């Protein structure tokens, strides 16, 4: 209880979503609104990041739900002066994905017939099949990259973070992120059959 009280107090003092008015209605409303705003602004990015990491839409939904459950639990202790909300949430997402892989005790081995469940909702069977194939190839290619490179690709293309944000999150230099991104995309391209220079669209 004491710890909870302290956390609540900390949230009030550090510019978290809480307020000092003491009016429970206002507090509840502002907390709810702040959380809703965070969810609306950042949930798609978190989901996309997770999707790149796990390559499975329904699993990505489960893990995204876990991320926001955690965010809700720790919402009052978030300190905006320490990190941007997107960075905070992505850090939770990274840990959630990492924990998932650890708990499931598996190495991501992608079978040739391991097609994603929901690659597309666009019309056209041929387009869907082609997209499924591309997503499958991408998943295969990503799984062959070192974990750090998978993270960089996912943070870049999924979460839409810039190199500086990625560097800060992964504790590497910004130039290293650029180098690894370039090389990872190059390796992916080489692994992607039919996507070598100039053959694509």
């Amino acid at each position, binding site marked *: 209880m004491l710890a909870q009280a302290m956390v609540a107090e900390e949230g009030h003092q550090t510019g978290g979503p809480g307020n000092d008015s003491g009016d429970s209605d206002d507090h509840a409303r502002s907390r709810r609104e702040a959380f809703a705003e965070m*969810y609306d602004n950042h949930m798609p990015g978190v989901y996309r990041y997770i999707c790149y990491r796990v390559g499975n839409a329904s699993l990505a939904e489960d893990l995204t739900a876990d991320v926001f459950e955690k965010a809700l639990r720790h919402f009052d202790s978030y300190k905006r002066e320490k990190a941007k909300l997107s960075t905070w949430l992505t850090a*939770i997402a990274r840990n959630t994905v990492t924990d998932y892989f650890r708990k499931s*005790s598996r*190495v991501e081995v992608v079978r040739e017939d391991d097609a994603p469940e929901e690659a597309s909702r666009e019309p056209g069977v041929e387009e869907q099949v082609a997209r499924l194939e591309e997503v499958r190839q991408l998943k295969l290619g990503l799984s062959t990259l070192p974990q750090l490179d998978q993270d960089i690709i996912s943070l870049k293309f999924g979460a839409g973070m810039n*190199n500086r944000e990625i560097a800060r999150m992964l504790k590497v230099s910004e130039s290293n992120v650029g*180098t690894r991104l370039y090389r990872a995309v190059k390796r992916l*391209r080489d692994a992607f059959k039919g996507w070598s*220079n*100039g053959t694509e669209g």
Partner: protein
Amino acid sequence: MARRDSSEKRFSDDIERLLRGEAPGPTAGDSDYAGMLQFARRIFALRQEPRPEFTRRLRDDLLSRAVEPDEAREHGGVRSFLDNLLFGRPALRLALVSSFIVLAAVGLMWRAGMISPMMEQAGEAAPAMLEEEGEAATAMLDEEGAAAPPAKGEEEEDTMRVTEEAEETAEEECAPVPGFGATEMPVDIRAYTAPSHKYGAAVEISIVFENAGPGTLSLQPFPPRVLIREAGTDTVVRSFAAGTSQLEQSPMESTQYSLVWDQKDDSGTQVSAGRYEIDIDTLEVYPSTNDVPLPASARGVVAFDVVSD
């Protein structure tokens, strides 16, 4: 080399433009680079958006609980009573906070060895006891019924996973420290590597340190010493020296440290096929506000195999 660096920088800039919905810069006839950009576009196009039903359902579920604490308060009950008691009365809150600070100070002084009932009782025997400070402290905790560390033999026999089991060990080893409690390990340490590696292949190891406590922490030395042990015999085959810096972590912040083991022992000889363990030690965790270490000396093991072809 310079050309590649330039391409990497240009590529990063172009990806940023792409993500902002802008057109990338001209490729100036560089077909390889154009191919890279084209492929990056495909990666971008393949990203999957969340289903609207999922988005809405999760949102509703979370928001219904985002106000629960306040609703519970409105509806009364024990929690409401305690909340009112603690937060509705500034004087009581001040008294509570003061008591907590005093308790914290006493706890930290005790941890620092400035208060030691055993030393007072022992009188002249104190210097001798100081030489065996660790064991004496263990004995004291045992007698007082507080959380005591396991016997040294037990500690060495234990094979731990880095996260949960390391936390459990920390719980056993720790006396209560204000702000974290005896049952809470403030730093979550997880090590990752593939479960098996080919003989002679480089072993990529990632170690994630996450501040799971409520306050800013300093981890030192950073990186901590990492040992590769032969499972079963517990022999250290390779030792990666600790760094000399320290790492400051805010609550919920995590830091990834990566290293590569070339499967060679400290003398440069390829190790034999078998099971090995990654052991992290020497790490001490300090709250940023003082220099008394928290009871989070981290030591954990994650095992993997080196297999012959």
